[in-house]
């Protein structure tokens, strides 16, 4: 009998052994969920094997008040060591304290190995006691994090200065802090088989359209990728049209922008490890609208929107207009200017298309290089660029002076868009327009614009047409499209996102 028992035990052990080693080439989902045993040493061994005997795994053994063997398992650097020594070990060992459990703010227990390993990996200190087939998970997460800082990509003159950082809980707190609405819903998700990235999906119940929220959640659940290193992964995996150059989900570093969009009935997605939050659905107006528009008086906000629209058009079209005018339609340029341009171009040996492509390429190289350069030598590139692209190229007779102005204005224009990812779409589309302008002049530019227009009309972001409220026309939405109507006229939310509670301001009493 005992032999049979031994054989049974042995078989159990080998199966367990197999199960433990099985996962090493796979990810978390495939770790076999073995139940913890009553013997603490066995559990520790299982965790060690599960993590492949990693050297940053700290196992602290001690005896508690009742003289039971205990152990704390955590990963070095991911935990706050003070909490462990003061509130776990002290509480457990000091006989003057009459409690059995550690004093941590979050305390859960589990009896599955998978849960234990997942928690160890995310910075939890796992406490185990001999004779108990379960483990206590203490929230001791505390690694060095960047503090809340001013957003780098979306600065405003007037408006809050705080931006998201890389830690999810801080980011969600930044939103909660602004939006003390009990209807704010936060749904937690873990995506990425290997990175196990925590993600919060946020929306306001009663404003956001439930089918749309469901759609966002369903698409996110479908993601089956090994890593989510930045919110861009999610953006590109859940967007409607994957081959489009236009961003169909907005990203932002600003909590106030997320809150404003949540209040318009959109869904916010926060991803652990990146300061960029996502906002879905997105429409074309993201290209030129900034949160600052709502903070300043509406006249200046409207003017700024028009300026941004003009600068986006310049960034897209100015070089190609130059090519079209100088190569195909010189009769359209006023005579004095055309003489000046011809004088400038007299030494240039290339056709205007080559000239423009050359200059645009040079400026793109400069821009890319200045992003990569380390801070202290950053200004160097400006000086070199100004000298090479500006002065030297003209005096060497490679490009005409007008071309330098055009390239400069184009570059500055592309920076005026408040959204970086929208601006780079425009930056990229500049090159095909230039080629078409070089082939067909103004006619080529129009061809391209029509194609873009067809494409934009076909785009949808989570069921919302990309060009709305312009098409399909929605007069109520027009109040906040090109112009930013004063707040007392924006009493209802834009309807294109199918909001449920439409009223923003119930009655408006003049002061």
């Amino acid at each position: 009998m005992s032999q049979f028992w031994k054989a049974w035990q042995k078989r159990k052990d080998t199966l367990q052994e197999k199960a433990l080693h099985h996962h090493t080439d796979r990810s978390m989902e495939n770790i076999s969920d073995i139940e913890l045993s009553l013997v603490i040493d066995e559990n520790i061994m299982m965790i060690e094997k599960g993590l492949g005997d990693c050297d940053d795994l700290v196992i602290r053994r001690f005896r508690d008040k009742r003289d039971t063997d205990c152990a704390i398992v955590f990963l070095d650097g991911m935990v706050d060591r003070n909490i462990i020594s003061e509130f776990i070990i002290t509480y457990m060992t000091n006989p003057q304290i009459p409690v059995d459990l550690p004093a941590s703010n979050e305390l859960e227990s589990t009896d599955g190995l998978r849960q234990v390993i997942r928690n160890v990996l995310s910075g939890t200190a796992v406490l185990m006691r001999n004779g108990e087939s379960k483990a206590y998970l203490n929230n001791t997460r505390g690694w060095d994090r960047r503090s809340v800082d001013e957003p780098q990509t979306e600065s405003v003159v007037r408006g809050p200065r705080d931006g998201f950082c890389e830690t999810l809980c801080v980011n969600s707190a930044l939103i909660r802090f602004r939006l003390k609405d009990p209807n704010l819903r936060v749904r937690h998700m873990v995506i990425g088989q290997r990175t196990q990235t925590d993600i919060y999906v946020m929306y306001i119940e009663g404003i956001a359209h439930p089918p749309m929220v469901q759609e966002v959640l369903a698409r996110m659940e479908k993601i089956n990728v090994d890593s989510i290193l930045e919110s861009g992964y999610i953006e590109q995996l859940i967007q409607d049209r994957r081959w489009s150059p236009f961003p169909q989900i907005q990203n932002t570093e600003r909590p106030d922008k997320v809150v404003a969009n949540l209040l318009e009935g959109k869904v916010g997605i926060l991803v652990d490890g990146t300061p960029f939050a996502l906002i879905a659905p997105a429409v074309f107006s993201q290209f030129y609208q900034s949160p600052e528009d709502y903070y300043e008086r509406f006249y200046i906000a409207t003017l700024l929107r028009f300026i941004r629209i003009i600068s986006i058009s310049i960034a897209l079209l100015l070089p190609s207009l130059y090519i079209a005018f100088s190569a195909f339609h010189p009769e359209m340029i006023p005579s004095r200017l055309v003489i000046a341009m011809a004088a400038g171009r007299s030494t240039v040996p290339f056709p205007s298309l080559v000239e423009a492509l050359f200059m645009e390429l040079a400026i793109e190289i400069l821009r890319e290089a200045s992003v990569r350069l380390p801070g202290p030598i950053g200004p160097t590139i400006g000086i070199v660029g100004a000298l090479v692209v500006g002065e030297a190229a003209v005096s060497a007779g490679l490009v005409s002076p007008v071309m330098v102005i055009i390239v400069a204005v184009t570059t500055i224009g592309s920076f005026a868009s408040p959204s970086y990812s929208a601006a780079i779409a425009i930056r990229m589309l500049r090159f095909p327009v230039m080629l078409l302008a070089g082939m067909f002049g103004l006619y080529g530019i129009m061809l391209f614009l029509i194609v873009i227009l067809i494409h934009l009309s076909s785009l949808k972001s989570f069921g919302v047409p990309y060009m709305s409220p312009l098409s399909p026309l929605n007069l109520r939405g027009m109040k906040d499209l090109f112009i930013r109507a004063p707040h007392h006229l924006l009493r209802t939310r834009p309807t294109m996102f199918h909001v449920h509670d439409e009223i923003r301001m119930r009655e408006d009493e003049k002061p």
Partner: protein
Amino acid sequence: MENQRGSISTWQLIAILISSMIGVGILTLPRTATTQMQEMGWLGPLIGGLIAVIPLMSIIYLSKQYPGLTFVEYAPLIFGGKRHQTWGKILHFPWILAYLLFQFLNTGMVARGFGEVIVTTVLLDTPLEVIVLTLFMIVLYLCMHEFEVLVRVNELLFPIMFVPILIIPYVTINSASWYNLLPLHIDSWKGTAETAIGTFTMYTGFELMMIYFGLAMPGARIALATWGGLSFTVVSYVLTVAAGIVVFGYEELQHLIWPTLEMVKTAQRTGWFLERMESAFLTIWMASVFTTFGNMYYTMIYATRLWLKKGIRFQRIAALVFIIPLFYVSLGPQNIVEFFAYAQKLTYFSYLPTVLFPTLLAVIQLFRARGAHAVADDKKGGT
């Protein structure tokens, strides 16, 4: 596909109707309207518009009788009635074929017409074939999408339709001599009728509404869209012809191939930074031409798709396949004179699918409805 039907709003219907009607024809209109009517040429498009009223009334009537259905679906019902469905299918066949053929040929002609303008005025060294090919390529790209994309493109390009109403009077006002409009007197009624019949071709495009009214939102105000769109078009045409007469006088107009373009060329003080406007005008006008022949070709493909009850894949392949013969059609006329002759013949053909077809359907439907009423009344009397 089915869930997208019933999504076109009244405003979008107006945009489609106007964009489909106003197109490349406006460039030649001041000449064609004044050939016979001389200084009273501006009356031509007005009477031509009146011709379009009858088929438009029929189309509205039919769409109200069969809400949510397009003509490829209701035509067999009307021809055959409930009892003779096979006859309905046989009888409606040649009419729909004529309709599709007209859209097909008209697409080719519009593309050719605009290609001629481009190569004779702006891109002098570019072969006509290349221009026509590029035009067809963007139409092909449009045909790869569902109809709601076409609707939105029309809606977004709609502001361009205001160019003839706003820009043309503005640029011509400086060189206007108002006496060219006098005397107000019609020489021959025969000439007037011929001009009206000839300028009616400017209004073709309204027959596309036989499809789009069927896809309109329930509750969309079809009649408002129709009459609003028609009056807008009539006003822009009359204004354009009047501007042509005012600037050039009818004698000179006869010698200009594209009088509207010449009118824009006369504009001296275009103001701020452009010396001459015609290239810019043509470029902007290209969008309007695109909506005209894009709508026609798309509707032809889409109607075929609905007729044969196929999906988007059929539409894409059909669009690609039909582009090839279309290329031959549009490059068929050897020169511009031959092209105008072809276009004239197409105008006569256009009466068949655009006027006769909807009117005939409406008349049959009228009788059927009366009959049904009579039967219903009888039953009432019986009980």
